[in-house]
């Protein structure tokens, strides 16, 4: 049974997500849609397998993930208002925009991707690239007050949970 699943359903999570996407798109929950969605959900990942050298992410700690997301949402809202305030009311020339280096320890590609997503979605920070020589993140901050605070925040509040989610092997 397990072999069968592994053989035909190697990407269970993705298949489920795709099936859900299909159902959402069609806004239907009838048998035909579910069947078609399931077929697509199974077939599509298999078809594109060769173009996915990394496979699909495996997440371990769903609760941590939820917590992280909640935190990020709040953070996004907060920074959003900050940025709006600056755009509307500040003297733009005095805004201290800078690049900073953040040393990273997370290695998992999906973890990195998640991190970049969170950082980029947070207004006021833009992920530039990972500087290869010392594996540091180059981050552009809209209004920088304290470089250390940023590095700390990212390391502690974002990176650590992500390491927990993506890199902790049972």
């Amino acid at each position, binding site marked *: 049974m397990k072999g069968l699943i592994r053989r035909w359903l190697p990407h269970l999570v993705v298949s489920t997500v795709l099936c859900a*996407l299909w159902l959402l*798109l069609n806004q239907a929950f009838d048998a035909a849609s579910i*069947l078609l969605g399931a077929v*697509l959900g199974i077939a599509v990942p298999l078809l594109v397998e060769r173009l996915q050298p990394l496979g699909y992410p495996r997440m371990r700690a769903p609760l941590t993930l939820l917590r992280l997301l909640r935190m990020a949402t709040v953070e996004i809202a907060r920074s959003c208002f900050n940025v709006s305030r600056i755009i509307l009311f500040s003297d733009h020339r005095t805004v201290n925009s800078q690049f900073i280096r953040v040393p990273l320890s997370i290695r998992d590609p999906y973890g990195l991707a998640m991190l*970049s997503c969170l950082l980029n979605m947070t207004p006021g920070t833009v992920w530039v690239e990972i500087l*290869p020589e010392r594996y540091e993140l180059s981050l552009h901050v809209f209004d920088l007050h304290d470089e250390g605070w940023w590095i700390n925040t990212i390391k502690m509040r974002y990176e650590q949970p992500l390491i927990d989610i993506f890199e902790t092997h049972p």
Partner: protein
Amino acid sequence: MLTLLVLLPFIGALIAACLPNSSRDRPAAVAGAVTLAALVLAIHAFGRVGEGEVLYQRYEWLPGFGLDLVLRMDGLAWVFTVMVLGIGLLVLLYARYYMSRRDPVPRFFSYMLAFMGSMLGVVLSGNLIQLVVFWELTSVTSFLLIGYWQHRNDARRGARMAFTVTTIGGLCLLAGVLILGHIVGSYDLDAVLAAGDQVRAHDWYRSVLVLVALGALSKSAQFPFHFWLPHAMAAPTPVSAYLHSATMVKAGVFLLIRLWPTLSGTPEWTWILGAAGVCTLLIGSFFAIFQNDMKGLLAYSTISHLGLIVVLLSIGSPLSVVAAIFHTMNHAVFKASLFMAVGIIDHETGTRDMLELRGLGRAMPYTAALAIVASAAMAGVPLLNGFLSKEMFFSETMQVGGTENWWMSYAAVAMGVFSVAYSLRFISVFFGPLAKNLPQDPHEPPRWMRFPVECLVVLCIVVGIMPERAVGTVLAVAAQSVLGAPLPEYSLAIWHGFNLPLMMSAAALAGGVLFYVVLRRYAGLAERDEVPVLYRLNGAQAYESTLLALSQAAAWLLHWTGTRRLQLQLLVLMVAMVAVPLLVVRPLPVLPALRLSALDPLFALLWVIGAACAVGAAWQAKYHRLVALILVGGTGVVTSLTFLWMSAPDLALTQLMVETVTTVLILLGLRWLPPRLAPAGLAAHIPPSTWLRRARDGAVALAGGLGLAAATYALLSSKPPPTISDFYLERALTEGGGANVVNVLLVDFRGFDTLAEITVLSIVALTVYALLRRFRPAPESVAIPVQQASDVDPAATESPAQQAGSGYLMVPAIYLRFLLPFMGIIAVYFFMRGHNLPGGGFVAGLIFATALIVQYMVAGTDWVESKLRLRPHRWIGWGLATACGTGLGAWLFGYPFLTSHTAHLNLPLLGEIHIPSAFVFDLGVFLVVVGTTMLILVALAHQSLRSHRAAPGATRSTIPPAKEIA
């Protein structure tokens, strides 16, 4: 029989043409046999023609136009036929010995026979249009004959000249004959001949006359078209002997005689032909005296004699027609013999230059005697045939202008004087001491080469001595066929008693001798090489300069009314687009007044953006292509949103997808367009011409924009007509089986359009692919882009796959790869719902292709293709086949192509499922779209591979070939 008569020479020509180039006797034998056979046939026909009967042979061809093939032989035609064939036979015999061993003889005889056939066709035509056909054929074949020695410049030039002049004449003749046919109501010769009064009374008579005269006069080398004839002397002598004695030039005369009953008898006839004839005979004979080339002399003499005949015809009295026919025959006989004599001289001495030739009578006494007799006939010496007809000419000239006006007679005598002079000049080569230093040692020609000359000279003498017995009947028959019975009184006798014509003859003879002596003594006739007084009258020069001027004028016209530059062409197109409706359309559409209340501010805001982007693109496109592309993209966004806003979500989707793919495409292309750098000081000095051009273009752009805006506004404010769309809206669901009417239209109602449309896509993809296989990048863009060579960029040395796997593209690559299945699902989604809601095969195909292209962008061509063999050609092929096959499926059910059907499946658990055939059709669309998009984009992308493989300093020739797309 008549058919055979005309066909025989052509058949002979074909046979001769097929003979190998080396054969010599066989073509001559063929030609001779054919001609002889035809001659026998013709002579045989005299039995009936001689009794005044007219022979016919008629074939239907285009009865609707009154155009049948009619062969018609009456007396006149018979005379000409025999002349053509008889002299033809002699000339062919002569040519057998004349032609050199180096010449391709079969071709010669073939041309000769073809010409003979055409000539017979002219003579025997019983339909005016048919006559013109053969007329032009004689021009064509004579062109070939004159240009026979094609390696010689003068032959080519002479041939072209003769051809051009006679063809122009032929076209005039055609026009004239067409009008004539219109007046008479038939092109049939009999009808035309019978309708003389009707024609002469018609308003268009003058134009007919002028056009026909142009044709005849140009063919007969009459002033002012005479110049081609001397240049035609570049032909081999047998050709000259044939063309300029009995045939080609006589065609014009023949035509005038032929149409004499219809057209003659009016002052216009007399004045036009008379003036041309008199000018010709004087100029021709005068020029002849001063020629140094023996053939040249004969050529001008021919011109002059033809002038004589034309003058005779112009006089318009029946008797003059008889004289004209008689002189035509006589001239043919003596002129042919003279040409052949010259040919013999040329052949045996190697030259025809009278300045060199001297005393040939000693070397070739027999030939000399023949030539002297013949030229005596030409000069009009009594007891020879020339004398008789000239006598008749003199007597006819006196009829013109009554008793007070003698100008025609003076002209005639002058011409007689000149002709005696040039005849003397001609025979002068036989007298005196034998010239030395001739190119060849002169001696008598072979027996059979002289034979034709002998025959003709004997004929001269026989006719000259006993005219009535020799040609009386023939002449009567011929004249009767023109004039109808009864013939006027005339007598063919040598002696009519002492009368004025005889005095004129005597005066001409004496004057001629005197004139010659005077010229020789005092005017240095033997040395001069240009014609006195009239040397400026150089028709050939005029012809050449006319042609040159024509070419220059044409080039000038082309320069001012045409262009090879694209910009101007597009300008013209745009101007036409604006101007033509304004010029042509009546009444112009009315433009309703602008109502500001109808302005939707929000929508206006949207289009402020769109318009600004468009104008910005127009402004930036020269030096900032990327910027222009982005700005065009801005307009695209706005367009897409407009579709969305105005109830066309399908369009919005499609526009959006096309926008994306186009951007990617152009970016792929931009890689190969080296940047255009704005030159320094660009704005410093712009020449006024540039400003002018810009102003012009700006005005056109403004006009075009305003025009389209006005048309749109006028339309939008007009009442819509009842359209066929209601039908679609009502039937889409019930009969088309889809709720999305636009989609049903695309795959069902107008599926045929879509089929062709995906064909267009396929074609373009194939073209792009074929083009890119041989693509040569611009030299400046061969090297890899500066961005990748820069030291600043840490990824400069990484391969695309490395960049995506671990390098700087790693994080984006994760997203983009993760997105792939989602895009696939979305593609399926849009495909599946197309029939009922926005979407469809096209959008789905583009989404799918975009998903793949994104993978190419992330990881590079090599990596993707190592994982995935796409084979876009197959997608295209299968797509087309699927779409087409779906359509064909309807045939099985007895319905027309593309008729849609729906399969109903009743599946357990799922219930009833409808699968319309349009769905399969749409699948075909999907496949084609994916295939084409991938083929185009991947073919472009592959070019980068080539440049990467090339060394940095690669030149054109070292660029590796494109990788095959699999």
